[in-house]
């Protein structure tokens, strides 16, 4: 029986656990690294270690950060009276890239997901509502995903914020760029109509 060196098998297994990486790709990545100079592998290993060792969640907005509060929460140039609520840390970079938003954020770390038994108590929802208590926040922008779980989350937060009299907005929903009207589903079309704008 032909055996593979243990370090090789171990790395293949580790890669294989990553999302979207099957056994073939895991092998390819492993042999690729084997063929590269030692520094490259070392740099990769260090980057992976630093990811867990040197990051934590911002104590204000729960974004992933290497300093606390995070750079966004510390930034005095930003408008702290606006909070944009997102499901995941990975939702922030694309919003930042638009360059259209100068407020701060709050990361819930997931949507409310009844089918998985995840309610507001499992998310950073209470922490978000407590940020609204001192009256300094004037607008909340709900940027949850346009699916049932995101909708549920947005509707729930709305119900909780409503008594505070804070302006609540949400990202416009509707037809994505490049979409075909003919193939749009009812929900998307009806939302696109509701959220129509002056032109």
């Amino acid at each position: 029986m032909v055996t593979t060196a243990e370090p090789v098998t171990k790395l293949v297994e580790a890669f294989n656990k990553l999302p979207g990486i099957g056994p073939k790709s895991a092998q390819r990545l492993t042999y690729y690294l084997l063929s590269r100079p030692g520094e490259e592998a070392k740099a990769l290993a260090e980057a992976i270690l630093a990811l867990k060792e040197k990051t934590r969640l911002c104590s204000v907005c729960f974004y992933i950060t290497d300093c606390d509060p995070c750079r966004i929460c510390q930034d005095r140039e930003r408008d702290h009276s606006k909070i944009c609520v997102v499901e995941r840390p990975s939702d922030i970079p694309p919003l930042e890239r638009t360059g259209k938003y100068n407020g701060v954020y709050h990361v819930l770390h997931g949507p409310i997901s009844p089918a998985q038994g995840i309610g507001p108590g499992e998310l950073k929802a209470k922490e978000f509502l407590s940020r609204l208590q001192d009256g300094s926040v004037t607008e909340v922008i709900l940027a949850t995903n346009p699916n049932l779980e995101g909708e549920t989350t947005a509707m729930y937060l709305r119900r909780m914020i409503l008594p505070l009299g804070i302006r609540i907005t949400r990202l416009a929903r509707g037809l994505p760029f490049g979409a075909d009207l003919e193939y749009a589903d009812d929900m998307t079309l009806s939302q696109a109509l509701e959220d129509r704008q002056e032109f």
Partner: protein
Amino acid sequence: MGAPRSYQTQAIIIKQTKLGEVDKILTIYTPEFGKLKAVAKGVCRPGSKLGGNVELLTHSLLMLARGRNLDIVTQSQTIDGFLVLKSDLWRMACGLYVLELIDSFTLENSGNHPLFDLLLDTLQRLCQGDDSETVLRYFELHLLDYLGYRPQLHRCVGCNSPIKPVVNFFSSSQGGILCSHCGQKEPDSRPLSVGALKILRLWQSFDYATARRVKVRSELRSELEQVMPGYIKYLLQREVKSIAWLRELRKESIVDNNCGRN
């Protein structure tokens, strides 16, 4: 001649799990084949032609191609997106609870037309703004009926004597009513008032049009809210996950028994 390579069916989307970056595995409930799993390719990409047609809580017409493992959705069209239900926090929670029960109690590839109709009717009733507790309890009782778990509500499941109009008991493990005598000896049973038993019987034996006309007094509501879910928990040997969300909304008084909107 082999089976045709593609087929068309009505379906209600009852569950979704992500598959890779942009695909999803759908669990759908159909009239002819019962529960099925199928792949919706590229559905997470903006502009996907399947998009909202295969979102949870949607009644769609699907074209499926037979795949080696799972069938693949090739075309889709929404018949009813239950939009009123999706615009209301409480009703959406009710809808998700209904889906989870269907998923938990059914097996793949066993068609059940009456059950499909019950599911579809239930979602439509939630949209129409019918009393949501009546809709849910009616659904639970008839779901159990179709699956062979009809609770016995007329004779004592312990001693077979007719039930008297006093406080009796409901036993999940024995699947029905225990008389006041037998119930006291059975520690797992819960007391059931005369009024609650009457309503359960009525919901069980009459059609929905009759069932919905019965006004349920508020003190009976909480009692009825416990009995059927308790029996369901016993049958599944676990808690239905989305019931926690219904309880949370009830606790926050986000319960809407009137019309769908707001």
